């Protein structure tokens, strides 16, 4: 990375505990009790456990882990779809946890957008209306919405499908609509929650290439969630590996591949097929 500012998004000591007795559970974790002990005594599930990281402006930051490792929970903290039990989250130096409903709405409208695993498209709206959604919500003029939406539909190669409905499109095309919707909102930060996981391998590779090509000119800050190390290595500038809501290792793809922090990370790395390893080394 060519030395961008390293603290576009800062996550400080964030805990997220699901359950009614979260205060008790939090105390137990801070006393170093295991997650099974906490579950047995309080009935609370730990989503994110004392996690700190900082994400630089203009990088693709990949958060990786198995299902249940808390990665989807973590990414929803960054736009506050989920509020942490304790901790701090700063975006551009501002503590987003101090925002009230209105400030949060403005933050979501102007600073951060999101792409979802099962697309989250509006089934009753056409492609162009879906892409323009973020702009429409924040009250842009009709002409501006249409112009921007058309531009981004072209950029993701969906020209000609403007007036189709989501159910008329294939999975890959639907996710392009999801991506175009996030890009059209023209926010600095884009969160991508397993955005390509529901797609078949060929389409997925195509989408990864397209994302990288777009990023060349856009320089967005992208937080990308995946459970697939190949994908992480392919697109990530840096990769964070999560297990049971804890951060295990953060580093460039090279660091992860050649000096895995522990046996858990090592297992991920070993599972990779050697051929792909050689290919991606060239790209890294």
């Amino acid at each position, binding site marked *: 990375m060519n030395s961008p500012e390293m603290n576009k998004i800062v996550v400080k000591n964030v805990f997220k505990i699901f359950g009614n007795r979260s205060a008790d559970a939090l105390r137990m974790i801070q006393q170093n009790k295991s997650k099974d002990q906490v579950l047995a005594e309080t009935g609370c599930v730990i989503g994110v456990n004392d996690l700190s990281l900082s994400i630089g402006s203009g990088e693709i930051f990949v958060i990786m882990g198995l299902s249940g490792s808390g990665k989807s929970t973590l990414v929803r903290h960054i*736009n506050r*779809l989920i509020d942490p039990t304790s901790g701090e989250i700063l975006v551009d130096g501002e503590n987003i946890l101090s925002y009230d409903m209105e400030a*949060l*709405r*403005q*933050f*979501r*409208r102007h600073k*951060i*957008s*999101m792409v*979802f*695993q*099962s*697309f*989250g*498209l*509006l*089934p*009753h709206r056409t492609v162009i209306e879906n892409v323009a*959604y*973020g702009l429409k*919500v*924040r009250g842009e003029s009709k002409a501006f919405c249409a112009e921007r939406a058309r531009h981004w539909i072209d950029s993701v190669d969906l020209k000609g499908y403007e007036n189709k*409905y989501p*159910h*008329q499109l294939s999975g890959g095309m639907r996710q392009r609509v999801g991506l175009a*919707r996030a890009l059209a*909102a023209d926010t600095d930060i884009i*969160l991508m929650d397993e955005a390509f996981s529901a797609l078949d391998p060929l389409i997925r590779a195509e989408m990864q290439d397209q994302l990288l090509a777009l990023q060349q000119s856009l320089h967005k800050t992208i937080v990308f969630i995946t459970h697939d190390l190949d994908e992480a290595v392919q697109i990530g500038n840096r990769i964070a590996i999560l297990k049971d809501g804890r951060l295990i290792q953060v580093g460039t793809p090279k660091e992860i591949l050649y000096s895995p922090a522990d046996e858990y990370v090592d297992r991920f790395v070993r599972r990779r097929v050697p051929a792909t390893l050689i290919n991606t080394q060239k790209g890294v």
Partner: protein
Amino acid sequence: MFPDSFTFSIANWVNDWVDALVTRYGDVFRQVSDSLLWAIVNLEGLLRMTPWWLMLAIVGGIAWHATRKLFTTAVIVGLLFLVGTVGLWDKLMQTLALMLVATLISVLIGIPLGILSARSNRLRSILMPLLDVMQTLPSFVYLIPVLMLFGLGKVPAIFATVIYAAPPLIRLTDLGIRQVDREVMEAINAFGANRWQQLFGVQLPLALPSIMAGINQTTMMALSMVVIASMIGARGLGEDVLVGIQTLNVGRGLEAGLAIVILAVVIDRITQAYGRPRHEASK
């Protein structure tokens, strides 16, 4: 035998309460009753004044707009024509007016309540048993106090109909909104949609098939109340069924009964057609 010392009765307490209500708020209820009556009478007047051929044309137009099927439209118009030919046109219009007002009131109460109940689990847990009571309590039980408050005629009939017919609409509105895909809601939230934009832009349009099914159920249940309504003095097709029973004139009762069924079928087809999501029609 159940021991006498354990028994008690709420009858006196309820009687006193209703009496007090009638003496203290009688005027208010009378005013509500009068304005409602004014609306029904005017609507009824308008429907009965409309020439029969114009009425058939209007219904035909609505049916065509809803179904886009020539055959269905022709059958709907034909069935209504049949009701006219057995001499029940005027009564049909009276029943239609009563039903339209009852449905309108049910919609005005039911949809907002359904929206609120979809938003709050606590409200829902209070509302649902109440709706069960409204649907299962024999209508005569609440007809008596309603009669005391509003007098005989159309207004208590409307009230009884609304109590019976609004619950399915409330339930189906609640269900429709709750069934909106969680990820779609999350997505529009992530783009900063406010409550208004969520409700009118996404939740209501996506719940529309369910809400239309609710309105369909409401109209059907309102029609099933017309005979009971006529017992407390509402005019219309129910009256003929009632007279048929009282005078052992089976034929007359059957004619009116079939006319009610025809009205039900017509309204059912039209509301169901509107309930089908538009974007799937273009598939």
